[in-house]
């Protein structure tokens, strides 16, 4: 087990370098002048531009630039914005908010999705089944920003049940509706995945055995059926945390949440390459680690999988 994890971590190194290099390349090799519009209405003075290009090593080979960036990154230094703010600090301020939003979304999608999936998987073809099928189709086909604006308008502006925007400290309570919006697509997916998995396993031999053992129906479903059926769902949820964090950008925009989504958005507009790179690199790290975690958890959930 320990060796397996170590090997997997080593495998992550080339993946990490590859992806971050790609990101670096995309961000810094982008056409366009990072100093356009930096000095108000007028073009920046040549002296300023020359100084900045030198300070940020913009005239060097991009590979050399990347290696310097990587070296700093390994020491925990995400670099600076053009105005001299530490990117690390910017991320440290924004990251926890997004993480909280993503966790709220993950909990919502897990609870509602699994519950809906189990209930419909056990009794396919009934009223509830059709209701869930239609509403998940609804969620899947509507873009997230529409769900977001509709809920914001109805719950926030019309009914006044929630504040239409989230305050600066973004507590868990405030994040429920944005979390729901962020989760909606995955929630529909989790519901369907659970439903299929339950319906498939419901007829399996080991469930029949559990019934033949005279176990209570609650135990047959809650222990024997659920434990097997949730294996693919847990896998999906684990990988989805990474996607939720990167997907938060739209939701954060709608509800004015000060997370990394907003940070990236502003940084792209201002051509702050260092910030964009930093945020995306961090997302990649989360993504890779969640993938590893999922593989380990998968092997724990399903003893037939061996660590090789």
């Amino acid at each position, binding site marked *: 087990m320990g060796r397996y994890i170590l090997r997997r971590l080593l495998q992550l190194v080339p993946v990490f370098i590859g992806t971050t290099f790609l990101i670096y390349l995309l961000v810094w090799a982008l056409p366009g002048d990072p100093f356009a519009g930096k000095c108000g209405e007028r073009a920046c003075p040549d002296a300023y531009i020359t100084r900045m290009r030198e300070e940020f090593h913009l005239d060097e080979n991009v590979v050399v630039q990347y290696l310097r960036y990587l070296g700093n990154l390994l020491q925990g230094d995400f670099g600076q914005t053009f105005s001299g703010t530490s990117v690390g600090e910017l991320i440290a301020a924004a990251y926890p908010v997004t993480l909280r939003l993503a966790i709220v979304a993950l909990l919502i999608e897990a609870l509602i999705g699994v519950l809906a999936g189990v209930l419909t998987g056990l009794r396919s073809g009934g009223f509830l089944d059709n209701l869930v099928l239609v509403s998940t189709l609804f969620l899947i086909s509507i873009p997230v920003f529409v769900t977001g604006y509709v809920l914001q308008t109805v719950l926030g502006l019309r009914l006044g049940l929630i504040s239409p925007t989230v305050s600066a400290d973004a507590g868990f309570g405030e994040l429920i509706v944005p979390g729901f919006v962020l989760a909606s697509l995955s929630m529909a997916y989790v519901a369907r995945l659970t439903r299929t998995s339950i319906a498939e396993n419901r007829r399996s031999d080991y469930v029949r055995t559990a019934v033949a053992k005279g176990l209570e129906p609650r135990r047959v479903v809650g222990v024997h059926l659920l434990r097997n059926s949730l294996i693919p769902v847990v896998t999906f949820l684990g990988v989805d945390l990474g996607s939720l964090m990167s997907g938060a950008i739209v939701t954060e925009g709608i509800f004015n949440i000060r997370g990394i989504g907003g940070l990236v958005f502003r940084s792209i507009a201002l051509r702050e390459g260092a910030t964009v790179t930093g945020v995306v690199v961090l997302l990649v790290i989360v993504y890779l680690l969640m993938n590893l975690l999922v593989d380990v958890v998968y092997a724990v*959930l399903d003893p037939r999988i061996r660590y090789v």
Partner: protein
Amino acid sequence: MATPLLEVEGLRVEFRTRDGVAHVLNGVDYHVDAGETLAVLGESGSGKSVTANTVMGILESPPGVVTGGSVRYRGEELLTAAPARRRELRGEHIAMIFQDALSALNPVFTVGFQIGEQLRTRRGMSRRDAEKRAVELLDLVGIPGAKQRVRDHPHQFSGGMRQRVMIAMSLALDPDVLIADEPTTALDVTVQAQIMDLLADIQAERHMGLILITHDLGVVAEVADRIAVMYAGRIVEHADVHSLYANPCHPYTRALLESIPRVDTKGTSLSAISGLPPSLTRIPPGCPFHPRCPMAAERCTEELPPLAVLPSGRSSACLFAEELVAG
């Protein structure tokens, strides 16, 4: 006559599917007493498993529907019993083991967990005591190193060992009736004999009633006391082992016995009888066996022969049973 331990009478089951109604059981009669083994024989699709599942109360429903008959345990009617009562009987009084132990055991739990589960949930045993008991049971069914293996998962066992685990699990609550649905079909020939011996030993030792569903005529001769032969959802012949082998009183049984290859290494195929079993959605009128029966006469296409008791105490559902018994 004393009340049998377990008795099935006139059991009728249909499967209502999109393709029509399949009349899978059309009046099954059999019984088993404490300390004896009843073998149930018949071609694939004759309804052996459906009968067993209905007795256990695990018939898949829908599409399966019980449309008539009776299943009695010590005289108590089960088909109309409350679900809670049926659940109480399952495992505790009537237990069942299945053909494919790999799929019948839950892949994600240890064998100790699965064997001890009933003891914990139904006898209120502590986790540790249940595991201790599981080790004893694994030992009893002949699994070497039971103590080390109790925390292994089903996939870590060989086919024969897995079936032993399944048997250990079925014995956890000391049932008086054990239904074994083709317990050796999925196994290697050498292992088959071992499992069959184990079952026979356990049956004798615990004075259980064993219903052994099997394809293997060779095995039946060794372990069974009586045999019930099924065809198209009915028992067509019922006799003690010796009489049945010596002098089958139903043309179908005759064909079955003749179909045993002389030198046989890999079980016995019952499909060696010419013709196909009838479609259960359209069972032919009269004797259902008549399209394949070498003795079929005019009458056979009109009259459904009842399972008639012959003077010797055996029974046969053939219009010419009396002549057959005379030889």
